[in-house]
């Protein structure tokens, strides 16, 4: 049963990702991405990561994609829709991607499944993932968490400086 659902989600994620790249209409691309994000959330759920699944939907599907849609609608991309081929070098990109896929498949063999550290599947199941994540994030990973907040601060400063500041003439 688990394998079936995983297979379904995996195939859907791949299919949607390809459609994101292939769609001529930018709005269709974004909507395909939305579908993909839902399926990624599904994979998270199967991994007992309900918090990640919820954030995936709220943050990515909810906030970021809506922003994407706004931007695309503001841009008015009617002319771009008629362009036969957006990128000229796609065969090179495709062959590179295929080569990468082959290498990754070859490397798959050296993955090994082992339970690591104190957060085994059973422990996470018992404490629930939200609680476990919160605990780890605010104790063991406090430093990365704080640095991430600085990264966000810089992003905000950047947005203000680049978009909002009046130019001196």
């Amino acid at each position, binding site marked *: 049963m688990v394998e079936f659902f995983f297979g379904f989600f995996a195939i859907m994620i791949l299919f949607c990702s390809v459609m994101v790249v292939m769609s001529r209409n930018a709005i269709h691309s974004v909507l395909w991405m939305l579908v993909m994000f839902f399926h990624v959330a599904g994979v998270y759920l199967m991994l007992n990561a309900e918090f990640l699944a919820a954030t995936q939907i709220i943050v990515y599907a909810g906030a970021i994609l809506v922003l994407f849609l706004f931007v695309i609608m503001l841009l008015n991309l009617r002319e771009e829709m008629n362009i036969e081929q957006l990128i000229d070098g796609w065969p090179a990109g495709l062959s590179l991607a295929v080569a990468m896929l082959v*290498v*990754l498949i*070859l*490397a*798959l*063999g*050296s*993955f090994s499944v*082992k339970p*690591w*550290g104190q957060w085994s599947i059973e422990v996470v199941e018992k404490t629930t993932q939200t609680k476990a994540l919160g605990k780890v994030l605010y104790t*063991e*990973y*406090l*430093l*990365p968490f704080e*640095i*991430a907040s*600085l*990264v966000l*601060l*810089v*992003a905000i*400063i*950047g947005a*203000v*400086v*680049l978009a909002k*500041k009046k*130019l*001196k*003439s």
Partner: protein
Amino acid sequence: MDITIIKPILPEIVMAALACVVLILELFIHKKETIGVFAILAVAAVSYVIPQSFGSAFNGMFISDGYSVFFKFIFFINLILAVLISIRYLKIERSEFGEYYSLMMFATLGMMIMASATDLIVLYLGLELMALSTYILAGFIRHDRRSNEAALKYFFLGAFSSAILLYGITMIYALTGTTNILAIASQLQGKMTTQLILAIVFLVVAFGFKIALAPFHMWTPDVYEGAPTSITAFMSVGPKAAAFAALGRVFTTGLIDFAPDWRGILIALSILTMAVGNILAIQQSNIKRMLAYSSIAHAGYAVIGVIAGGAEGLSAMMNYLFIYAFMNIGAFAVVIMLRVEGVKGEELEHYRGLAKTHPLAAVLMLIFMFSLTGIPPTGGFIGKFYLFKAAVGAGYAWLAVVAVVFSVISAYFYLRVVMYMYMHEPEGEPAALATSTPLGLALLITTIMVIVLGVYPSPFLAFARLAIG
């Protein structure tokens, strides 16, 4: 609360706090150069807490050791010099905003975190903090299309390289179950797998992008040319040194057992980088573009230090970056001086007959060009000498010979600038110079240091050796 547990990270905390203070000061202070001065004072405050910071914190995620402290001093020098050369330049470019200085401080903070990180997640976040700040700084002259282009290109390719770095990190995590750089070595137990090779390749690509190793250097000329010149100077030294710090830390501690594997990759990239940097620099007529290719070439030399490895190689690499900071920012300071109202001053043509019209500027440029070529008695010579000595000592004499050959090629384009200044007659209107006290101070510091490092380098060399321990 026990304050001693956060002692190792105190310099970073002070830097973060002062960067926020500088950000707020922008609201109240109208003379923006005051903010620049404050940024320099902040560096002084941070350096003051550094001596007490030695130790490890956050479960071994973060360490303050000689290695990281040495790099932090390079970042501080980079920040101070970049602020000094920015003050007048920003006015000329009409982009005088206080956020500029605080973003520079945040970028420096990111570099400090990278140098001190002993955990791959912390390393990644430090890199991202540094990169995000520099993307914004590269596009700081908003009304200039080239600056916009530089920021956008840097951002897209930078995001790509971050993704590759994360890919590498996840692979290492999948293999070892840890992101701690020290624990990685003990978990891997020297066992080579296909996946590990991939992880190493990804890490080399990601760091290579930040260092601008060929063939991941494509962004460098465009970004360096388009970005504000002061920022070009800033990012040709700081982020590069930070990526070198991370490369050295990850490869010579976490992945030291696989040195024969990554050494081969780095040797190939180093030779390619020296070739691409030095040969393409010859065709450039824009001095910022030429210095961009020159910075690619210098990255190729510095990688030799990592390849040679050991205390000898790493300290040679650190020294080289230390010296490079002075000579490169010095050269950019002269370039900035030629940028006056209405004249870009970036073309080689602008240097025609500079020795006649502005002898002092010409002499300074001469010193920096000599140093970048590696001609004694300048610092550049000492840097290269110890780098090549380390290579010979580690049994890579042939690589040192290759590097020397490329250094000779590099003389062509560095000395061409000198030739334009001294052998050509000035044409048309004599070029004006935009001098100012801070810029003069930056030039004074860089010139003195380039010469002192060339004539009497032993205290600095000893410092680097001591830092390695």
